[in-house]
Structure formats: C-alpha cells, structure tokens
C-alpha cells in the first residue's frame, strides 16, 4: 500500500485527464461560436444538429392534449364518467369555499343580483383583527400579537380588506386539504419503501414544474373560477408536506419507537400515539410550508379566477397602474408575514398543559371564548354602528399617489442612470450569452451535459441528464429552452455575485447577521408575484426587467447557504488556524471558504431552482422563453402545449439539481464532511 502511494506521490507532474478533456471540449465550443466559417461549414455538413428536424419531433404535445380531451369527453370510470368525477370534486370544494368566503369576505347572501338579501354579515374587521391578535398572543406573546394585529389593521386601513379576505378564505380551505393529504401520503411513503420509491420522482417533478403549469390542467378540467384555483393550490402545496412527513417520521429517535413497542403499542397506536406526536415539531414546519406555498399559488391563481389580492395586482400591472399594484402587493406582503410568523410560532410553541379542573368549556378554552366574544360583540355593535361591522370607507387611506409620485420621481431623476445600467448589461452580458447558447448544436449540449454527469456521478447520472436534455430537443422546445437557460443562468450568476459577499459579511459579523437574517426571512416568505412589481416599476417590460425580478427573488438562498456554510466550519479549525498565525483574511480564504464550498454550491443550486420558478412568472413582462410558452398555453387553455413546456422547465431544473447535488456531494466526501 505505502509503496504505491509513494509512487503516485512521486509523479505530480502527470496531467489529470478530466481538466484536459474539458479544456479541449470547451475550447472547441468557443471556436464554434466565434468562427463563423467553422459554424457554417458544420451546419452545411450536419444541418440536423443545428435545427432539430421536424420529422424527428415526438408529438407529445398532441398526445397530452388528446389524452385530456379523452379524459373529459370519453373516459368512463364505470359507475360515473370522469367529467362527473371532476364535477363532484368541484361541488365538494365549492361548499366549504363558499362558506369561508361568506364568513370572511362577502357575508351570507340569499339570491342573486338585485334580489340578493344579506342574511348574515361577514365577520367584522375588528373581530378578525381581534382573533388574529389572540392567536398571536396564544402562540407566542405580545410582540407577535402586535405584529399580526398591525398586519391585519393595514389591510383594513388601506382598503385591501375584502380582497385579502377572499385570498385568506381560499387559503383557509386549501391548507387543511394539503396538510391532511400530505400527511396521509407521507405516512404511506414512510410505511412502504415501494410507495416512497414510486412517489419520489413524482414529487421531484411536482416541485420543479413551474407554477403556471399547474394552472393549465386545473383550468381545463375544472373551468375558470375559485375551485380550479383551489385545486391547483392544493396540488401545488402538498408535496413539501409529503416529504416533511416522511422525513419527520423517520427522524423520530429509535429509542422512542422501541419504547412504544415495549409499552405494547399496536401498529396504529405506535403511529398515532408515538411517532406522530414525537414528530410534531417537524410536521408543523411542513404545515408552515403548505400555508406559504398556498399563499404563493393563490396569488398566481388569480389568473384562473381565484380573485383576491392577486387579481388586484394582476389588473393593476396590466394597466401599468404602479400605485395600485404596489398597494395590493404590500397587502400580500403583510398577509404573508402575518401567516408565516403565526404558523411558525404555533410550530415552535411547546405543548400546553391540559387543565384538569372541570371548570366548563369556556374556562378551559379562554382564547376560543375571547375570540367568539369578539365576533359576537362586533356583530351586535355593527347593527348599531356600521363602522364596527366594516371599516368605514371614508377613513380608508391610500398610498397609491405616493408610490406613483415616487416612481415618476425616480424615472425623472434617474432615468439615464437606470437606462445606462440596463443597456450595459444587455449589450455586454445578456445578449452575448444568449447568442452563444443559441448557436450551440443540440447534440453537443447533450454530450457535454452527459459528460459532466458521468464525471460527477457515473453512468446513471450521465444517462439521466442526457435523457432530460434530449427531451428539450425532441419536443422541439430547444430554442425556448436555451432562452430559459440563458435568462436563468445570467440571473443566477448575478444573484450569486450579490449573495456571496453579503453572506460572507454576515457570517463574519454578528451585527450584520442580525440585520440580514430577518430581511432574508421576510424576503423568503413573499409570494413570487410580488417581486415583479418594483421591477416593472423601474424597468418596464423585457428580458432585463425579468432578470431583475428573478435576481431579487433568487438571491436569498445564495446569502443563506453562504452564511450556513461558513458558520458550520468547526470552531476548533478556526482556533487552530488562528493559533498558527493566520490573519482574518487568510482564515476566510484558506479555511472557511474551502470548507463552506459544498454548502455554497447547494446555495447555487437553490438559486437556480428559484430562478427557474420565478422566470416562468416573468413571462408576464414579455420574455421569450419556456415560461412564455407556458403562459401562452394558459391563456389558450392548451393543455398539451403547457404541460410539455412545463416539463421542459422541470427537466432543466432536475438536470441542474442532480449535477450540482452530485458535485457538492463529492466535495463533501472529499472534505470528510459527509
């Protein structure tokens, strides 16, 4: 052993095969890009490599569309048809939604139009605020109660109340379905390895398919309206709960499970009385994710008739009414913050003592009693004084003129500067990258990706990634895909370049971190849609605007993972380096960064994932990529087109995820961190 090690060590000058191979291949690629002669010659030789031949296209699009048509028109499940099935689901969801909507937003109404009679008013704004404050107080204490109260008060005072309540009622119905469904599927996956193996790729796909792609089949099967949007929301928000459930159940310590078995639990008792309660806290993290994803989706689902705050933003954006858009956008932000902090506090809250005394229902549940009292008092009060029932319109404030003024002030004073930045980046970075990617022949790209897969993860990864990339070509989405790769790549690059220094700074200075953490926590809770508003405000439409919105959305993981990676470097190593006389700079470059690299890579991975999901939403501001393809499909309710383009986005995401994941894993193994 030692002899061979000595020989290997004695030949440091021998060239490593991989870097040489990559250098040659990338050199050839650039040559192809810069030398038009070579490019033309090659194109003459093998035109099929540059323009994917029509005859080779797999008509997946038509198959999917045909399948959906067949589902709706002809599929018979025996007792009932598929159409009846979707109708009954629709009917099943309509009722709870109508109830929640009446309770929070519309009031209980009998009849339609002019003959409508208000049977019972909606919950008073004061009652909702009071309930929110009580929940905050119950879950954590006064600070949270104040925060949540202020968030809801904002919605009332700035005239966003009704829209916010429509949004809230969609969430209130979608979340229980998502949580219960996710929990049950997660339990199934936990119990049976086979079920988990079957679910894993589906979950991967569901979490990478762009958000719009969910809307299309929902729209097609359930029609325009809140029900379709709620179904899309539930489907979109469930996967993390499934994953979290499997993970949480698996993390229950073996000893606790052993104890449960030794206590003589049956299988059912072991699950419901031991495993699930012991996993409660992780499960609540899953619930928090379901809530936040539901909000994200409900906002975007306004495109298929969800209504609420998302609809307000959408219409304002379409009118380029910046003030109104921002106001509704801030409404979404405060709602997101309130929901996130509340659900996190509930998750972190230690279990409470059960009161043993039989003091009566109200004494045992003081918070519930107080909430009901608030509802009753404001209802009776509302009969006398209408302002107690709904917030008086005359007292509504609006910030729209202020925002409008601010934007025009910025545009007047900084137009040239902003325009210069935009032009510079477009000309020197974005357009060259785009041209480069668009000139590459598809077989070359497939080959390079497969090679990277082989180097990082072996044959299986090579085959997987090559197949995924090939899919882009055979469905004739190559150009759209390259547009997506270019926008996503540039955005992820810029987001990383912004995120890394901030992350390093925050990781090394506690005071900076104290500012950065709450900011990125908040940024992360905001629905993707919100990020569009300021970008459009300052840069109107086009690729650059899209890029800005994507960067703003995707910068958070770059910061977070950098902080995490640096902070996880064992303190003993820092001490050792300090003891050897390293300066702070040397410690950063020679100890902290190399060891944090795998984590930082995972951050890049997350940045790319988030960039891709945001990119699709930026189709609203006129990009020309796969996102646009999905968006067009949505407006035309063309399921096949939308799903194929959505799958393309998902496959790009999965390819990037697997390659970077494998890379990070290899680094971790080499550093002994795995």
């Amino acid at each position: 052993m030692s002899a061979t090690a000595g020989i290997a060590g004695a030949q440091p000058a021998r060239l490593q095969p991989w870097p040489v191979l990559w250098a040659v291949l990338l050199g050839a690629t650039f040559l192809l890009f810069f030398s038009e002669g070579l490019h033309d010659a090659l194109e003459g030789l093998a035109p099929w490599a540059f323009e994917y031949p029509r005859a080779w296209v797999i008509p997946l699009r038509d198959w999917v569309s045909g399948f959906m048509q067949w589902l709706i028109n002809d599929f018979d499940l025996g007792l009932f048809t598929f159409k009846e099935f979707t109708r009954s689901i629709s009917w099943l969801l309509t009722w709870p939604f109508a109830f929640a909507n009446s309770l929070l937003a519309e009031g209980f109404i009998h009849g339609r139009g002019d003959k409508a009679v208000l049977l019972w008013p909606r919950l008073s704004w004061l009652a909702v605020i009071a309930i929110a404050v009580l929940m905050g107080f119950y879950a954590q204490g006064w600070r949270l109660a104040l925060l949540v109260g202020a968030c809801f008060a904002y919605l009332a005072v700035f005239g966003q109340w009704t829209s916010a309540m429509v949004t809230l009622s969609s969430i209130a119905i979608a979340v229980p379905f998502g949580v219960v469904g996710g929990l049950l599927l997660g339990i199934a996956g936990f119990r049976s390895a086979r079920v988990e193996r079957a679910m894993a790729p589906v979950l991967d796909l569901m979490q990478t398919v762009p958000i719009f792609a969910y809307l299309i089949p929902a729209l097609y099967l359930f029609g325009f309206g809140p029900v379709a949007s709620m179904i899309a929301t539930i489907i979109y928000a469930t996967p993390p709960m499934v994953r979290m459930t499997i993970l949480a159940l698996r993390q229950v310590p073996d000893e606790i499970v052993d104890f449960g078995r030794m206590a003589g639990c049956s299988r059912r008792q072991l699950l419901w009385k031991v495993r699930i309660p012991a996993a409660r806290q992780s499960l609540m993290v899953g619930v928090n994710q379901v809530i936040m994803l539901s909000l994200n989706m409900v906002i975007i689902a306004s495109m298929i008739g969800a209504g609420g705050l998302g609809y307000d933003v959408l219409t304002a954006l379409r009118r380029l009414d910046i003030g109104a858009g921002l106001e509704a956008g801030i409404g979404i932000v405060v709602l997101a913050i309130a929901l996130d902090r509340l659900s996190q506090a509930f998750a972190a809250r230690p279990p409470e003592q059960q009161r043993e005394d039989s003091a009566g229902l109200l004494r045992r549940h003081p918070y519930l009693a107080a909430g009901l009292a608030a509802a009753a008092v404001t209802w009776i009060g509302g009969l006398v004084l209408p302002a107690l029932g709904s917030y008086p319109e005359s007292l509504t404030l609006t910030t729209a003129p202020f925002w409008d003024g601010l934007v025009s002030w910025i545009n007047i004073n900084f137009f040239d500067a902003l325009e210069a930045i935009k032009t510079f980046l477009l000309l020197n970075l974005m357009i060259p990258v785009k041209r480069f990617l668009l000139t590459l022949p598809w077989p070359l790209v497939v080959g390079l990706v497969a090679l990277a897969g082989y180097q990082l993860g072996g044959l299986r990864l090579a085959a997987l990634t090559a197949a995924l990339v090939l899919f882009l070509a055979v469905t004739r989405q190559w150009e759209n895909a390259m547009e997506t790769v270019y926008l996503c790549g540039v955005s992820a690059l810029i987001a990383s370049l912004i995120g890394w220094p901030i992350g390093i700074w925050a990781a090394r200075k506690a005071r900076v971190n104290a500012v950065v953490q709450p900011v990125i926590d908040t940024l992360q809770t905001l629905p993707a849609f919100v990020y569009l508003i300021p970008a459009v405000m300052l840069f109107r439409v086009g690729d650059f605007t899209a890029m800005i919105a994507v960067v703003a959305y995707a910068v958070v993981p770059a910061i977070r993972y950098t902080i995490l990676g640096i902070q996880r470097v064992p303190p003993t190593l820092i001490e050792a380096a300090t003891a050897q006389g390293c300066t702070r700079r040397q410690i950063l470059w020679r100890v902290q960064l190399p060891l944090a690299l795998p984590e930082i890579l995972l951050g890049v991975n997350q940045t790319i994932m988030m960039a891709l999901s945001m990119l699709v939403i930026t189709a609203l501001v006129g990009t020309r990529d796969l996102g646009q393809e999905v968006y067009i499909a949505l407006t035309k309710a063309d399921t096949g087109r939308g799903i194929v383009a959505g799958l393309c986005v998902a496959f790009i995401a999965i390819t990037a995820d697997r390659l970077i994941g494998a890379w990070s894993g290899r680094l971790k193994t080499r550093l002994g961190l795995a």
Partner: protein
Amino acid sequence: MTSASASADHERPVKLACRNVWKLFGAGAERLFADGAAAPSAEALARAGLIAAVREADLAVREGEIFVIMGLSGSGKSTLVRCMSRLIEPTAGAVLFEGQDLLKASEAELIALRRHKMGMVFQHFALLPHLTVLGNVAFPLEIQGVRRAERERRARAMIELVGLGGRESYYPRQLSGGQQQRVGIARSLAVEPEVWFLDEPFSALDPLIRREMQDEFLRLQRLLRKTIVFITHDFDEAIRLADRIAIMKDGAIIQSGTPEELVMQPATDYVAEFTREVSRAKVLSARSAMEPPVPGARLSGSVPADAKIQDLARRVIASDGAVAVVDADGRPIGQLTRDAVLDILAGQSDRPA
C-alpha cells in the same frame, strides 16, 4: 462456579433464557441456518458478507436477580437485549420467557406480554416530548385502555416511588437528565412488569448523578424484587449492581458468573483486563478468601461466609491471627487469616492460595 452461590441460584427458577441466539445483519442471513446448521463459522459469515451482532448467546436470568450484560460499544449487548424482548428479530435460536419460546409468539401475544410483563428503561430516556411526567408514566397504561382516573392514580404512585412527587405536570424538557431517567424508570414500572430491561440507563448521566441513581436503583430492587436484565459498558457499575454478569465481546458472551467469579477466575485475558483495576476487597467474600479449617486453631470470633472482605477487614485485622468463617447456619467452614485479608487489601490476591 463456586458451589455454594450456585446452589443458591438453583433454588430460583429461570425467568428468561437465551438458547443459541444469533443475530446476523446482511442479506440472506436466514439461509445460513436454513439447513439446521447450529453455528456458522467466522469464515462462512465473512464469505456470505454478513455481520454477526450476536453469536451463539446462551444465558439464563433467574427470578429476582440482577443480571448484567457488560460489553464495550459494538459488542452486541444492545442487540442482545433487544433480541430478548424481540424488538429485534433474532436470526436463529430461542428466547424462553417462563419456558415459552418468545420467537414463536404471535403479534398479539407479544403485545400482551409487553403490556403486562415487561418494562424497559432506555439510555436516552425515550420520554415522549409532548406529554407531561404524569402523561408519560401513565402512557403504557393508556395504551392498554386503562381508565383515566385509574391510570393516573397508579402513575402518581410510581412518580412518588421514584421521588418525583410534585413534578407531575412538568414536561421532560423541564427536567434534568437524572430526573428524566427517574421518569423513565417510573414509566417502565407503571405496568408492574415481571421482567425489567434497563439498557444503559445511567450512561448518559454525570458521574455523581450516576452514583446516586445506582443507589436509587438498588433501593428500588430491594423493594420490588424484579427480574432484571441490565446493560452497561461500565465494568464498575456491573460489579456494583450485579448478582451475575455476562461479558460480551464481538457479539459473543465470553464469560458469565458472579462478580466474584469473574475477578477470581477470569476466563480470558480480555476479562482479566477489566478485573485488574477492580478493588478485590469490594468483590471477594470471606468464602473465597478463606483457608480450610485447621483443627484446634485459636480463632477470635467468626464472620459470615458471604460477607465482603471490605466489610470485615477491620475485624480480621484487629484479631490475633484468624477468624472463623461460618455458613448461613452458623457452622464453621473455614478460617480467614489476617495475612490473607491484608494481601487482598494490598491488591495481591494473585498470590497462590
């Protein structure tokens, strides 16, 4: 085995026994035993790519005794105790509970057995984080469907027994490690089990607390007289608590016997390594240090044969030369000289007797 202590054991029936128990990890482990082979060789295991966590374990735990299984980490002691309660399915062999093979019990029989006859204490306490002390201790009863008032009455009694009265409504995270393990003990006793498994119950505690808990444990055992299987990696703890000890290494039991037997006749160098540092005076009894009675010798007083040297040293040293050693009926069976006691105290018991 020294004859007298062995005969005392024979009076008590065997409660729990392992017969040629094997636990192999790896694919196709059952096949090795399919053709009725009793003991696969180490080479056969290596060839099949299997890891033997427990091999050929034979032991018998008698009613009311503290049986300690001692071994370092990776020796298979935790796996063995889990085989004895069938938390882990042994690959081969038999586990006899009151003569019945546990491995043939149905799921329902096993659940009934665990509910009523077994209790277990865990190294990291394994308390349910969402339940109070009272809820945790009452949990095994709740699982059986005991009514609330009844199970809480019994749980309170157990909490009182382990000295945690007044903390019934605390949550595990509000208690210290020692207190948490008291809850674990109370919980395992709540169903009044006959066999009590303790899997390294004090290993996660600070040395001072560990000592206190060992005393507490001995106090409880004097009160309750359970049949106990106690796992530890700490030889001193084993010596202090055990009626009998089994020492495990690489999955096999290499020696079992009373602490005194292990110290006097270590079967292998490995066992001798453990016993070397043990204070002889604490372990050895007058019986094993005595000489045959010399007719007509002048003896000043007598000591019981089972008394430890540590406890009678002063008397013997203060005597003129030797004391008589008497059995339980007061009959002299030998004599103990001052020199013999001094040698033991000085740590020179290896001297040929």
